[in-house]
């Protein structure tokens, strides 16, 4: 604050050469490299989604062929999940914020951090080259034996891409865990850490224990296709459910990888804009860990109708309900934080409200799927599509955008235009509900997922959904435009424009390369906003 941002040295103006970006080991610059790459992938995934929604305007699916449509939803799923949602908050905001929030100069392994980004890009290139050379049509779930024997598309290349990008996740998670364990500033005890750090720790746990199982199951598909080992081949007595078990062992917890970071962001935004200590800090912190751990025990709820044993189904169903409890705890604690606060309606807060709302709907409809008898009907229908988009697009992207707006002044040193921000948040919320709420009804009517054509009576709801998608698109495009605009034209932001607590707001915006002028010493719990009573005393 002492020197004006224009002359002060910080991580952005430390060096302007391209090399200084591509060979940087600064976690803040790596975060921006990730931000750029995930936005490229998001746009790609969004284009695929747009073509799919347009195709579904008519029952016959006039726009694209069945084969093309299958490749579109496969690529949409793969890119959005592995190249956007999973890295979005962790690799961008997590990378930027974890060292600053705990008072460290960098992550524990900065070169590994850069390597993770290159591995991410390499995985992306593999996957995109698979798409360009003809695409892949297995669905993002790669179910055997279709993927291992019957599909004639570029499965091996795609699987290689996902395998590679998995390593990026693993190394990022490893880096974060070691950083949180060993790099905390003096006085930064576990219960003085911001809740965002707790959620990133839980996310990292899933990265390191779940991702390798996905990696090996993809390797096994690869060797079955290329070397003709019979791992999943039903003709040899192979069990088609084995792959589903291995796949969902990672891919269900991966859902929590996409939502936990968003929960962490919301846990930062709400106390800041309610100017109030978060309600139930310990409950929110431990519920993150509980979600990560119990989240590993519920994967079989994707397999209730698959021919899995009914007894295993019962166990998985019961555990699935158990994992809903920590999620409910979080929602109630956030709501209670507002009670007696001094609430303002800045853009990040609107996104946080949107997050809670959409997460509540998404979470409660998840209970339909965890209920054994109900899942028989709604499994693999648009009900499932609507449910997980409420979680993974509604909530997770709201969390990402909320966090991006909240920390935008810190990252770039510029304020975004507030009025535009509020309008975009509102448009996004309305557009999202218009797109995906009709899909709940479609699902209960029985429209199966991954259908490029459908019976004519489903048309009205599909048209409604496509119309909503166009509004949603506007809601996502607007922030991109005005955030870019703000880089050049917006007023400079101070070190702490929101009056927030937390170490990241005690260093200038943008932060210097070493994050802090001197190592901070932490002496109090997070979110200690002064209250009215404190003022009286």
């Amino acid at each position: 604050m002492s020197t004006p941002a224009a002359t002060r040295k910080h991580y952005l103006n430390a060096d302007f050469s391209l090399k200084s970006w591509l060979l940087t080991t600064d976690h803040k610059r790596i975060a921006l490299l990730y931000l750029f790459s995930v936005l490229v992938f998001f746009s790609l995934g969004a284009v695929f989604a747009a073509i799919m929604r347009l195709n579904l305007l008519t029952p016959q699916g006039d726009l694209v062929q069945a084969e093309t449509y299958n490749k579109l939803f496969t690529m949409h799923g793969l890119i959005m999940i592995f190249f956007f949602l999973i890295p979005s908050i962790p690799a961008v905001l997590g990378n930027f914020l974890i060292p600053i929030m705990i008072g460290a100069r960098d992550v524990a392994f900065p070169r590994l951090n850069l390597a993770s980004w290159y591995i991410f890009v390499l995985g992306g290139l593999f996957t995109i080259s698979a798409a360009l050379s003809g695409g892949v049509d297995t669905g993002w779930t790669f179910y055997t034996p279709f993927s291992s024997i019957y599909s004639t598309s570029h499965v091996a290349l795609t699987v290689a891409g996902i395998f590679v990008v998995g390593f990026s996740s693993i190394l990022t998670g490893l880096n974060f865990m070691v950083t949180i364990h060993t790099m905390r500033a003096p006085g930064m005890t576990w219960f003085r850490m911001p809740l965002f750090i707790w959620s990133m720790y839980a996310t990292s746990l899933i990265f390191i224990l779940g991702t390798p199982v996905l990696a090996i199951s993809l390797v096994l598909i690869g060797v079955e296709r290329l070397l003709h080992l019979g791992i999943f081949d039903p003709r040899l007595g192979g069990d088609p459910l084995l792959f589903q078990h291995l796949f969902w062992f990672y891919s269900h917890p991966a859902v929590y990888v996409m939502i936990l970071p968003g929960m962490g962001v919301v846990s930062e935004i709400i106390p800041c804009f309610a100017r109030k200590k978060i309600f139930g800090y310990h409950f929110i912190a431990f519920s993150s860990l509980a979600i990560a751990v119990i989240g590993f025990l519920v994967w079989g709820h994707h397999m209730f109708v698959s021919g899995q044993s009914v007894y295993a189904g019962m166990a998985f169903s019961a555990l699935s309900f158990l994992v809903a409890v920590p999620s409910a705890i979080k929602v109630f604690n956030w709501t209670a934080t507002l009670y007696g606060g001094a609430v303002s309606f800045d853009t990040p807060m609107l996104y946080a409200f949107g997050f809670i709302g959409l997460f509540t709907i998404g979470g409660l409809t998840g209970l339909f799927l965890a209920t054994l008898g109900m899942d028989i009907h709604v499994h693999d229908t648009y009900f499932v599509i609507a449910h997980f988009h409420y979680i993974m697009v509604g909530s997770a992207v709201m969390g990402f955008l909320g966090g991006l707006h909240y920390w935008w002044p810190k990252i770039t040193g510029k304020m975004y235009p507030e009025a535009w921000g509020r309008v975009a948040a509102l448009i996004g919320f309305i557009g999202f509900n218009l797109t995906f709420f009709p899909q709940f009804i479609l699902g209960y009517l029985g429209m199966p997922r991954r259908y490029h054509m459908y019976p004519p009576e489903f048309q009205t709801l599909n048209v409604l959904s496509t119309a909503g998608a166009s509004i949603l698109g506007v809601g996502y495009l607007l922030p991109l435009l005005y955030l870019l605009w703000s880089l050049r034209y917006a007023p400079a932001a101070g070190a702490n424009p929101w009056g927030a607590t937390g170490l990241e707001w005690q260093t200038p915006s943008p932060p210097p390369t070493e994050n802090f002028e001197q190592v901070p010493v932490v002496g109090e719990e997070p979110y200690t906003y002064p209250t009215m009573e404190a003022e009286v005393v």
Partner: protein
Amino acid sequence: MNEHVIPPRLYVAIWAALVVLTLLTTGIAYVDLGLFNPIVALTIAVCKATLVVLFFMHVYYRTRLTWVFIAAGVLWLGLLIGFVLTDALSRGWILTPAPWTTAV
């Protein structure tokens, strides 16, 4: 890190134990223990792995945190195998043997 320089004698002793256990597990495989053959083989393997982890990998001398991550790895592996086998083994249990032996 608190450096415990472990005497090489201990390493050699651990090595000798590992060799003996290897020969033991190979030999015992030729004895019919029925159901216990795989159990004995795995128990010996777990013992060998524990020796390697504790002494060759110095875990015996280090902080609790290392134990936590080892335990997590082993526990999660157990969960994966446990649930997969739960499914496979209970698939055949028929609820009520309601034989539809004759077509109507």
